């Protein structure tokens, strides 16, 4: 058929499309989105060791840099800013009043002309796979746990130069005057994680709206794994331009 002939045809409109055809179109779109999202996540979780093949939207990941590879998914549209997570973090980890390991930011996002939406965005250490804080520490006081990928602290080695604070793109660190060392989120490694058998952190346990989903990226049964690998969900990380390859993911779900 020639272009001129096409131009002469009448527009059928969308009303004549069958619901089967619509579903197929949507399915096709979601598959493409899923493939690209999966690819993005693979590149974010970084690790040159990660092997993932993209086959029609399925992302078989066989090798993560850590095992377990702890992660947290923030379902930010569920957050109501009740701050129970903050209280749980403080009491579980003995966080002093002058600091915090995690907090909730309130965003005012433009959604249309003269219309803005309020969103609560919990933030914490992103336990990056490429952590600038670890790179700059002169005494290895902060380090990446070789087993589980958690960015942890050895307070007795901290000289208080605060270079890690200056280097962190997420404002996730503070100086604890009580032990004269930097303190930060370690996914409750010594306080809650061990006692729960590596299943949950204090903030995730305290959240009444299931905003914070803690899990293991190497465990397909983990809720965090399932959420991140849902092809119909948009997943993002904070400040991707800093190339830190975070392990805290955000989504509306």
């Amino acid at each position, binding site marked *: 058929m020639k272009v001129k002939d096409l131009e002469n045809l009448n527009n059928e409109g969308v009303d004549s499309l069958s619901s089967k055809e619509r579903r197929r179109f949507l399915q096709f779109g979601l598959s493409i989105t899923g493939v690209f999202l999966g690819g993005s996540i693979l590149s974010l979780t970084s690790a040159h060791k990660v092997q993932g093949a993209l086959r029609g939207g399925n992302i078989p990941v066989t090798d993560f840099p850590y095992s377990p590879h702890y992660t947290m998914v923030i379902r930010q549209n569920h957050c109501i800013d009740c701050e129970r997570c903050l209280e749980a973090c403080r009491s579980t980890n003995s966080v002093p009043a*002058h*600091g915090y390991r995690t907090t909730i*930011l*309130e*965003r*005012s*996002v*433009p959604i249309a002309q003269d219309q803005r939406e*309020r969103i609560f*965005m919990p*933030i914490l250490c992103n336990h990056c796979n490429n952590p*600038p804080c670890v*790179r*700059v*520490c*002169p*005494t*290895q*006081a902060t380090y990446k746990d070789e087993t589980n990928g958690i960015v942890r602290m050895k307070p*007795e*080695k*901290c*000289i*208080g*130069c*605060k*270079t890690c*604070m*200056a*280097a*962190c*793109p*997420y*404002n996730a*660190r*503070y*100086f604890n*005057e009580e032990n*004269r*060392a930097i303190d930060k989120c370690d996914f409750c490694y010594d306080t809650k994680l061990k006692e729960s058998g590596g299943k949950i952190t204090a903030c995730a346990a305290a959240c009444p709206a299931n905003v914070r989903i803690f899990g293991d990226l190497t465990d397909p049964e983990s809720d965090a794994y399932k959420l991140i690998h849902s092809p119909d969900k948009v997943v993002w990380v*904070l*400040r991707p331009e*800093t*190339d*830190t390859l975070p392990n805290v993911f955000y989504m509306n779900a």
Partner: protein
Amino acid sequence: MISYLKTNTLSSTSMNQVLIFVGLALISGFGLSFGIHSLLVGHDQTFGTSREVPWGILVSPYVFFACLSTGLCIVSSLGQVFGIDTFRPIVPRTVFLALITMATGLMCITLELESPWRVGFYALLSPHQSSNIWWKTTIYSLYLIFMLFNFMSLALKKKKRAKIFAIIALVTVTMGNLNMNSDMELLGARGFWSENYMPLYFLSLSTLTGCAAILLFSWLGKVFGGQILNIEDHRALKSTGKLFMVLLLGILYFTGVKVMGGFFPQFTKNPEAMSLLVQGGFALNFWIGEVALAVLIPLGLILVTRGTNSNILAIAGFSCLLGVFVLFYDLVIVGQLIPHYYQYNVVDLPKYYTYNPSLHEIMITTGAIFFFLAAFVLGEILFKKTYSS
């Protein structure tokens, strides 16, 4: 033009000279006592720094004195390493100045640390080879030792040995300078420090401040000792003045790059910070400190007098040092003032973080500067013969 002739012989140390030293040392001790107090009660009680702006004004004198020492070492190497005769007369004083400036810088960064007592153990027992800050501090500490041996060899008239230590110190301090740049550049959270021109800028600034310090402190040393500036000294300062002028032109170019970045976002990777510096809250610092005091006034003074008047060269050097101090303050602070989540429309997040140096920080900085001045005067008292030889 030789404008402060008094005598051409070495005078013995007068009571006035000793009193000046004691006065400077007392002021230094008073200022530094604020640092001891801060260590005891914690920086949260005494410093203006915060979680968002963790590095305060004390990082500026560290960077300033370390770069100054680098520049002094480079200029001293012209005479003792590269064998340029014109620069030989200023070598001993320059080496001593390099020594005390680095000592002052390291003292500043020590007082900026919250738990400096752990450095001795863990910098040695748990070194992190990927950390530029570890390399930088280690390199500068080694450099301090090499410069000490260099100066001792000069004082003992062991020229060959002095040259060997000078070469090692020169290589070491250049590595330290490049590490300082990398250290700041690595802080991905603060893009202000990762501009492409930074390595050359740091090295040029260091050499510039080295020249400025030689012009000022050679003049001050002669005035303090009531001595004449002989022909060789005068020639050495004139040559330093020429090098100073060339470097000023180079820094003028870099300043122009900053101005472009401040007004036109497409010329910089960090438009928010550059705008804050050039036309925002730090504009006064930038235009008066970085542009006028650091570059234009010294350049104007040298061009007007054709670089032959040692008094004017000393004033130009002083103006430049003041301006570069402001420049390093801006460099350290402005880089931290862009909020971490500025692109996320966070409610109540300020456009820029704020930082104001506290009384303690100002007093410690003052104490460090007076420590350097007291050490300089002590050098003039103790090493007259070494300087004049």
